[in-house]
């Protein structure tokens, strides 16, 4: 306690009374309000009635009386007038004094500081939660990415197996009694091109090339199925020595509405070595090219075996026309898919069938392969990267 002369302590009291708008209430041991003095209106406590329960008129007193501890302080209590007071409680055995001291200015100052502090804290807490959510999402993405990688690796492995199967069903090149060779470069791991050749009987040699629209698993499955059908001659009622019959039966067996909306172009020919006759029919397929003359000669002449017929799978009642020509040695027959010559050059132009014919009719240098030259021409025209379409070409050299 300050040991001050009475005049100074009185002066201090007056100062506090003036600055803090002091008011006080007195409550007796029956918890009735018996006295209210000071700046009561300042706190919205004017007009109090004496003699009744204090808590009925002054809600802040509810439950606090009798006082459990003294002195007791409630800081910064907002009063009915909107002013803010520190509420001091003092008690002796019979009386409770409640002193109100205005702290509105300090309250406003504290509120501003606290507001800024809480705003910052809430923001940083929110930021921390967002970062945690981002990290969790990132971990989930990483996990999903890892699973996707594994799944893609499995898929790639399965695609490689499928590609191996597609290649496995292709016939090996042959050299007797005439040479048959080929180049097969799918644009993706699985393409829509397939081909085959086999002896129908001792005198008839069948050769065929299939190009299913599109690429990928669906096209590959269909082209392998069509190839197997032709290879195993599994078209009831069709005579595999007659190309038009074969294509008509094939068209009936593979309608696009029952095969994933996929259709295909097919060229089917039957060569009879004894007579040199080649009978053929086409289902929307590019015309094969016959090059007559020795391979190394500058006298070679290239001509296309033009024919017409609808694609396999589009028209249920399609009919096919058969054509025929003579192949006399020395000559080469080239059967190919459109991916062999419909190649976009870097300048935006497209290679044409005439370009392929020109390439094939040029004399070969020593040790050169006609098929490799065609593939090189395609790759040169295309530029770097995989070809846009499947590249398939089959050669019969007589």
């Amino acid at each position: 306690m300050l040991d001050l002369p009475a005049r100074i302590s009185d002066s201090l009291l007056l100062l506090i009374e003036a600055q803090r708008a002091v008011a006080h209430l007195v409550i007796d041991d029956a918890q009735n309000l018996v006295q209210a003095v000071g700046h009561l209106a300042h706190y919205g406590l004017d007009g109090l009635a004496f003699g009744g329960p204090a808590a009925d008129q002054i809600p802040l007193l509810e439950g606090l009386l009798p006082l459990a501890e003294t002195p007791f302080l409630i800081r910064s209590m907002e009063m009915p007038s909107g002013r803010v007071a520190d509420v001091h409680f003092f008690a002796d055995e019979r009386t409770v004094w409640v002193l109100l001291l205005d702290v509105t200015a300090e309250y406003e100052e504290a509120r501003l500081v606290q507001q800024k502090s809480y705003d910052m804290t809430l923001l940083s807490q929110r930021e921390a939660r967002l970062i945690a959510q981002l990290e969790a999402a990132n971990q989930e993405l990483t996990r999903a990415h890892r699973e996707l990688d594994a799944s893609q690796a499995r898929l790639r492995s399965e695609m490689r197996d499928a590609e191996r199967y597609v290649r496995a069903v292709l016939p090996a090149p042959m050299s007797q009694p005439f040479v048959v060779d080929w180049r097969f470069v799918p644009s993706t791991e699985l393409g829509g091109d397939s081909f085959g050749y086999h002896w129908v009987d001792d005198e008839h040699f069948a050769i065929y090339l299939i190009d299913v629209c599109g690429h990928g698993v669906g096209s590959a499955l269909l082209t392998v199925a069509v190839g197997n059908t032709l290879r195993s001659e599994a078209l009831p009622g069709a005579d595999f020595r007659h190309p038009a019959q074969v294509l008509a039966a094939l068209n009936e067996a593979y309608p696009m509405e029952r095969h994933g909306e996929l259709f295909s172009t097919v060229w089917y020919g039957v060569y009879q070595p004894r007579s040199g006759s080649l009978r053929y029919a086409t289902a929307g397929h590019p015309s094969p090219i016959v090059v007559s003359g020795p391979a190394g000669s500058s006298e070679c002449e290239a001509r296309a075996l033009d024919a017409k017929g609808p694609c396999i799978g589009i028209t249920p009642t399609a009919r096919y026309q058969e054509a025929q020509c003579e192949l006399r040695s020395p000559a080469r027959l080239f059967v190919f898919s459109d991916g062999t010559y419909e190649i976009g050059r870097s300048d935006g132009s497209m290679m044409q069938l005439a370009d392929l014919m020109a390439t094939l009719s040029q004399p070969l240098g020593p040790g050169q392969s006609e098929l490799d030259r065609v593939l090189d021409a395609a790759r040169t025209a295309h530029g770097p990267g995989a070809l846009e379409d499947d590249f398939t070409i089959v050669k019969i050299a007589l």
Partner: protein
Amino acid sequence: MLQKKICLLGAFGVGKTSLVRRYVDTIFSDTYLTTVGVKIDKKIATVGSEQMALIIWDIAGEDAVAAVRVSYLRGAAGYLLVADGTRPETLETAASIQSRITAEIGATPFIALLNKADLVEDWAIADDRVQQLEGEGWRFCRTSAKTGNGVEESFAELAALLSR
């Protein structure tokens, strides 16, 4: 008329003042205004056929620096313990306050409010933690001072609890 003092307690920013404003004045503001000290409101609640005057003490929230003054609860018949459903740490603050009240004042009726229930996408309080506290005897209500959902019901439930 029966008159009861109740308190709202919890961490800062959980929406105690907004709950009181919604209950007493049926208004809500999105602007966050921090509470310093204590603000007292009064509202008449109906419990069955009886009326009860609730003297509602809205007490400044607890933060890292300042703990809730448990002595302010003296004479309170019960309290609402408020947590922010989007801030799990506020439920732990509520648990801490509750244990201090029990230690210093003794068992006092209370209801725990998981406020801001309208912020469904940001909801972060784990169900298993809530179930654990329910196992300890806590009674939970989901509230939204913004929409008013659960607010009237929570105060009414506490009033009913105090009238028994």
